[in-house]
């Protein structure tokens, strides 16, 4: 004869404990034995692609997602392998990552920090993503990078150009392949000097948020160093759509160059307005008036149409590059999707390969092993020439492209022409450079 020991209180207690256990974030319980968050099983590994799928950068996000899907296909042995054959590290062999099939989940950042953190958290806690990557905004990158640091997950940043991502907001678990504001200024200044001389007066219109500040600071300091004078700097609201009242006074300000520290819709509108107000045809101080857009994106340049013609800017990568890596990627992407990839797509594809390669070389998904494999890693064949992932700040140092809006484009993708490939040495700076002051990398967090 058996006696039941169940009591109402006992059942409730057990239920509560079980519920609490189930409610725990996965990264706090699963695979704790492995010593790090979201250690993958033997058959598959899950990557989290956090890109803007809605909002004003949705088209850029869609291009990022295409690149990620292509990278996953190549890692799993599909397609033509893309950049894997041209990548100087030949650790990847098309059998997934460490023999595990690569699967992915996606999140929508909406280009909002809180939404991006929520989607990243969901991919980490619910889907078991071992790495988060993507994004099209520095605000989002900084926010998600901090979250990944706390969670013990590697963050491979997408398109983020603010100095702060690998400056005052750098984190040990975060890595940026994309270039930054300082590099834009350092690459642009000599080209601007050669084209427009060193006796110029610049007027800056700057988007009133973090990326705008660092870009203005970088371009201002680079151009002033070569002799340009800055006559005025004006902050414009991020939500501004019509810039006429900011642009109208420029011609009569004593300036002969307008620097538009704007990106995305801001850049499209401010550049369009500047051209409408006749700045391209105007004369000031006995010279032709000029406009400069420090950060170009082909997707955004398309929105400005013919207004980009002849206007200098910088970019991380462009599909017209002739190196073997770039050509392999363009061929692979273009064959699959029917159009060339954007710089956002390129950086996201490369980041995925770099992560997979680091895991393979380290022989472990443990974030600290990945960090060690990526720090001071030198590689080539991924489209930007010889590149260093500097250990001190987790920033990639590579060639930067100075581009100009093309006068006679052949087709809708042929909007920018490469004016100069600025060597990495010219855009390299010490890790303690004042524009990157503050913050500390800290130590890697494996989580769990």
């Amino acid at each position, binding site marked *: 004869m058996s006696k039941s020991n169940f009591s109402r209180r006992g059942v409730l207690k057990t239920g509560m404990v079980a519920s609490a256990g189930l409610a725990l974030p996965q990264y706090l319980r699963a695979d704790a034995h492995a010593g790090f968050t979201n250690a993958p099983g033997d058959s598959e590994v899950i990557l989290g692609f956090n890109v803007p799928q809605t*909002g*004003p950068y949705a*088209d850029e996000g869609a291009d990022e997602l295409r690149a990620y899907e292509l990278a996953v296909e190549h890692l799993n042995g599909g397609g033509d392998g893309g950049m894997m054959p041209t990548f100087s590290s030949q650790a990847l062999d098309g059998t997934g990552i460490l023999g595990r099939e690569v699967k992915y989940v996606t999140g929508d950042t909406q280009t909002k920090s809180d939404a991006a953190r929520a989607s990243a958290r969901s991919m980490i806690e619910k889907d078991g993503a071992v790495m988060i990557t993507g994004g099209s905004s520095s605000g989002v990158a900084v926010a998600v990078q901090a979250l990944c640091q706390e969670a013990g997950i590697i963050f491979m940043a997408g398109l983020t150009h603010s100095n702060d991502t690998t400056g005052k907001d750098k984190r040990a678990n975060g890595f940026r392949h994309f270039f930054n504001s300082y590099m834009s200024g350092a690459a642009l200044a000599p080209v601007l000097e050669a084209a427009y001389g060193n006796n110029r007066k610049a007027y800056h219109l700057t988007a009133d948020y973090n990326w705008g500040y660092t870009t203005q600071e970088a371009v201002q300091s680079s151009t002033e160093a070569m002799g340009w004078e800055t006559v005025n700097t004006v902050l414009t609201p991020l939500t501004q759509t019509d810039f006429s*009242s900011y642009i109208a006074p420029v011609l009569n300000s004593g300036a002969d160059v307008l620097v538009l520290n704007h990106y995305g819709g801001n850049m499209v509108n401010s550049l369009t307005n500047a051209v409408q107000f*006749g700045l391209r045809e105007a004369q000031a101080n006995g010279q032709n008036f000029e406009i400069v857009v420090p950060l170009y994106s082909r997707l955004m340049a398309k*929105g*400005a149409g013919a207004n980009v013609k002849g206007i200098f800017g910088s970019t991380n990568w462009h599909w017209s590059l002739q190196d073997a890596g770039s050509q392999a990627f363009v061929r692979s992407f273009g064959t699959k999707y029917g159009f060339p990839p954007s710089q956002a797509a390129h950086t996201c594809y490369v980041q995925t390969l770099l992560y997979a390669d680091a895991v393979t070389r380290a022989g472990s998904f443990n974030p600290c092993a990945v960090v060690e494999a990526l720090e001071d890693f030198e590689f080539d064949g991924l489209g930007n020439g010889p590149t260093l992932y500097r250990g001190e700040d987790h920033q990639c140092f590579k060639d930067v492209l100075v581009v100009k809006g093309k006068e006679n484009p052949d087709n809708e993708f042929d909007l920018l022409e490469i004016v100069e490939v600025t060597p990495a040495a010219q855009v390299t700076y010490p890790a303690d450079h004042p524009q990157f002051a503050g913050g500390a990398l800290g130590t890697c967090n494996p989580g769990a």
Partner: protein
Amino acid sequence: MDQFILQILNGLDKGSAYALIALGLTLIFGTLGVVNFAHGALFMLGAFVAVTVSNILTLSHKVVDETRTDFLGNPLQVDVPYLYDWFGQTAGDAIIDWAVPISIIIAIPIMVAIGFIMERGLIKHFYKRPHADQILVTFGLAIVIQEIVKYFYGANPIPTPAPEAFVGSFDFGVAFGFDPNAIIYPYWRLVYFFFSIFIIGAVFAFLQFTTFGMVVRAGMADRETVGILGIDIDKRFTIMFGIAAAVAGLAGVMYAPINSPNYHMGMDFLVLSFVVVVVGGMGSLPGAVAAGFLLGILESFASMSAVIDILPGINQIIIYLVAIIILLTRPRGLMGRKGVMEE
């Protein structure tokens, strides 16, 4: 002095857009009593009529150019518009160049139809519901419309240039004795300003000098009495909704060359236009127009660096600051009527 004139000019074209959108908003509120948060979406749809017309005019077939290659190294397929085949390249280019003015003619029936469908299909069911319900449903409708547009046209802005004849700017400075470059103003913005004056004048004339307009005004003043006289005022109000949609749409069509259209441009204008309506006085057509121009000009002045240096951030809050001051001193707005939104 030149800066003063310059900012007034800037304010006038910005105010033109505010006034046109606010005019439609207040027209709908004055006739149907509906607070229409989807009105900004109508402005955006107008701009996308211009984009669509431009796309239709540039419909092309492919011709292989063996002398050039595409990004994959294959022979380049060049797009040749059908208009070139039908009218020759010169005439074809001229027609494509005038896509935006052509869109005005096409936008009127399209926008009236969209307004009619919107009113009959959805908004009429909310006439007797609280304003909060109306705001929620129309705001939801605006989001649905913009997501549909994004699905078909993408999230990036689409350049829709003005005809070549209106590209460039006019040097007012030289014309009025100031230094060259002191007062520069783009031709198309001048066109936009005069176009908006014409549309506003036409709407007022329609309401003031036609029998239809007289009945509508009577209905706005006392809907029940007009109904008792055997006049189907609802039908006329539906037509007014269509007219208000057309006004917003035309404002959007003409705005397309000023800033490249994108799916959320309506939302960018919506909140400001509501502030314009409230400042002008709910239901007051002259109030909406006056407030549109007033706030446009004030916004321009607040964007001057000399002003920002003294009052940092004023450019971001000026419109709301003025709205607060007006509502504190004149709770019904500049030209608001007693009894409107006061039940």
